[in-house]
């Protein structure tokens, strides 16, 4: 397994974990970097494929997106919407304060 061209280090792992909103203990950064590099190194074999002029495939279905009519068919189910909420009050979801 070759080292990936775009290898990650502890700092990259910290950044990715932050973007992913995953708490990673300081001591796990290096082991995680090693793990990810193992996978990324294996993935790098894709560089062998000639993809010049090839369109990326974003879906296995080759039709246009279906469109629906502009009708109100949903909503009015606040109880169902809030039923599983860790915390709710007066019809609102209640979450940790998002501004200082």
């Amino acid at each position: 397994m070759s080292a990936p061209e775009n290898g990650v280090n502890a700092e990259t792992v910290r950044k990715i974990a932050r973007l992913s909103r995953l708490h990673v203990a300081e001591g796990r950064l290096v082991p995680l970097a090693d793990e990810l590099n193992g996978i990324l190194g294996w993935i790098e074999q894709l560089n062998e494929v000639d993809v010049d002029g090839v369109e990326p495939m974003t879906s296995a279905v080759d039709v246009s997106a279906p469109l629906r009519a502009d009708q109100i068919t949903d909503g009015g189910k606040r109880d169902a919407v809030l039923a599983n909420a860790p915390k709710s009050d007066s019809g609102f979801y209640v979450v940790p304060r998002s501004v200082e």
Partner: protein
Amino acid sequence: MFTAERVADEKDWMKGETGDWELIIGLEVHAQVSSNAKLFSGAATEYGAEPNTQVSLVDAGMPGMLPVINEFCVEQAVRTGLGLNAQINLFSRFDRKNYFYVDLPQGYQISQFEHPIVGEGEIEIHPEDGDAVKVGIERLHLEQDAGKSVHDLSDDETYVDLNRSGVALMEIVSKPDMRSPEEASAYVDKLRGIVRALGTCDGDMEKGNLRADVNVSVRRPGGELGTRCEIKNVNSLRFIRQAINHEARRQIEIIEAGGTIDQETRLYDSVKNETRSMRSKEDAHDYRYFPDPDLLPLQLEQSFVDNIKATLPELPDARKARFVEEFGIPAYDAGVLTADKVTGDYYETTAKGRDGKIAANWVMGELFGALNKAGIDLADSPVSAENLGGLLDRIADNTISGKIAKTVFEKMFEGGGSADEIIEREGLKQVTDTGAIEAMVQEALDANPAQVEKAKQNPKLLGFFVGQVMKASGGKANPQAVNQILRAKLGL
């Protein structure tokens, strides 16, 4: 492309300690599509509902819930694109913009990044104190709105209402073609007029249905471009001007003190009239856009676009030009009368088949004055366009004088009804019976022998007698007839 070549008029330069500065402004306007249901779900969009009552499980980001595109929203985006004289892209695609926030239930916003539904276009704006300016449109794309966070119901928690979550927005991105706060607000005002004329967005800025992100940078006049800052969600034309002024001033002060501008997102505080940074630096954003795998590309038929084109209403600019041409009114009047659809329609009904200039004077003078005084919108005017038109007809055929017409108008404004009904009821019909007028003229001459002599020397004094006769007739005597008879009797 970017028209950086255009240098602002000198009057728009900002004075700094070290010399003059020029403002470079671009806008991203979010216009809420006037649809019944949301962009990707069947929940309602109506404003002001109880929290979380207009939320589907899709809008709440429940596991396994999937988006399906609202056709009407696609149509409105195309319609708006056509109104902006822009390229309509038959192939477009929805992408995910990934970030975490409490009012973003899915953890991503579905937007259009690489392939927007509308490409480049151009509109012309008319700032109040300057020449017409062309503003390039970079793109228009469809995206979903986020929910609403409420911070004042608890000291240490945030309350979240997802009623707005998933509502369809058109993000209209301009090129950085504006050079002054006035141009920026004229641009937003023009956009507002266009979407309202098209019926694609109600343009209500107070409700946040049309709001602007303003990109501002400063440079030496004609010089190299500076670093821009984005001011988010400004929701009135006045605030747009104030925010730009403040932000440009802030940037100039930093640069002149030897500092540099950080590209960042800022917030306009209309209470303190200042902008401030919205996000801390460590929270650098990386939205990781990629095509939404839950949605297939949107592929439109040319006929879909052509059908929309065929039903496109006349836009403010075109209507203004036509009013000048068809009704012979000055460009300024035409601009006022086409500012929005209701005004344009009102004027057009009033002026059709009549003297356009007189109609314009009545609409902009008597009518607007009375509405203003009473605090009533034109849409709710007690005087209908048909009735005002009828009033103008009675002036034209000499049934009433212009002066009496004002009385008729007042009655109309108070209680409604047609001009004919009011004239009949109030006995305001002009006296054209020459015998009756002759008697009144004779009476006036007999009562003022000294004035008769003077008037014979100086015909300009004829007005005195006209006034006397008009007074005696309660304003109903036909002024032309009075004049004629007077002149004959005095031998003039």
